[in-house]
């Protein structure tokens, strides 16, 4: 689909706050509830809106540390990438896994209670995985998400 200007306005509004009802959103845009609903439905069907993400205060929930890990696989031929992806994706503290091209093979986002807890996850769960070579860790200090070109 080719979204029009109004679709982009809707996307941006739902990106900022997906909790609002179609009635509330429609009122803001001067659009009827059914018309708003139809547009959102179309954006979902086209795969532009891929779902909803809950925003939680990680720190208040006891997760004080987020670390971005760059992982280089040492033995790419022997261990299949899929095995690594399955195993690393199954670790509850691993929030995201991206297969990347460049200095590292994978980028992981790992959450932990504190640095000691992170060390436990890193040593016991990630470093013990077959094929893991060089690992670089960067501790997250601040983060902001931008709406992007919409």
């Amino acid at each position: 689909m080719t979204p029009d200007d109004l679709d982009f306005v809707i996307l941006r509004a739902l990106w900022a706050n997906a909790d609002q009802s179609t009635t509330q959103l429609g009122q803001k845009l001067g659009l009827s509830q059914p018309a708003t609903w139809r547009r959102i439905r179309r954006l979902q069907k086209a795969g532009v809106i891929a779902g909803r993400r809950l925003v939680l205060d990680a720190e208040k929930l006891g997760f004080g540390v987020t670390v971005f890990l760059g992982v280089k696989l040492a033995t790419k031929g022997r261990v299949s990438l899929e095995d690594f992806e399955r195993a690393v994706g199954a670790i509850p503290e691993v929030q995201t896994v991206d297969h990347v091209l460049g200095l590292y093979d994978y980028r992981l986002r790992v959450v932990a209670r504190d640095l000691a807890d992170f060390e436990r996850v890193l040593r016991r769960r990630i470093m013990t995985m077959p094929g893991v070579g060089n690992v670089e860790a960067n501790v997250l200090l601040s983060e902001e998400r931008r709406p992007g070109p919409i």
Partner: protein
Amino acid sequence: MLDDVDRRILRLLQADPATAMPELAEATGLTPARATRRVDRLREDRILQGSHAIIHWPALGYAVSVSLRITLDKAVARAFDEFISAARAVPEVIEIQTFLGRVDVRLSLIAKDLSDYQRIYREEVLTLPHIADIEALMTVASVKSDESLPL
């Protein structure tokens, strides 16, 4: 403080933020009124801060996603602030993170294709202030992206 029921509510909402209150009540063994009170309190305490729509950029024609790892020139006092406010003005930047480690700042950048990326990289990224070093990692595939907390 949070108890097990709160955690269960958050786990269910995390898996599906659209979960309706009656469903939430049934799954946690609470009455709908009690479930509503619990959710309201989690919101008041700012533990539950709302939800965002997830935009799948490839569906809008942005096929390229690059992670830029940047080291800043720390000899300049306001390097971080000036870099970040300039990076905010680049529309294709969708995430900005700062770090303690070898990398100072990471930008998540999207582009329509490789030539579009090259243009953004040359004209809008390399012109950002106080860059000492920059490395690019191109995303081949996103294997896991739910960003759930292990509650």
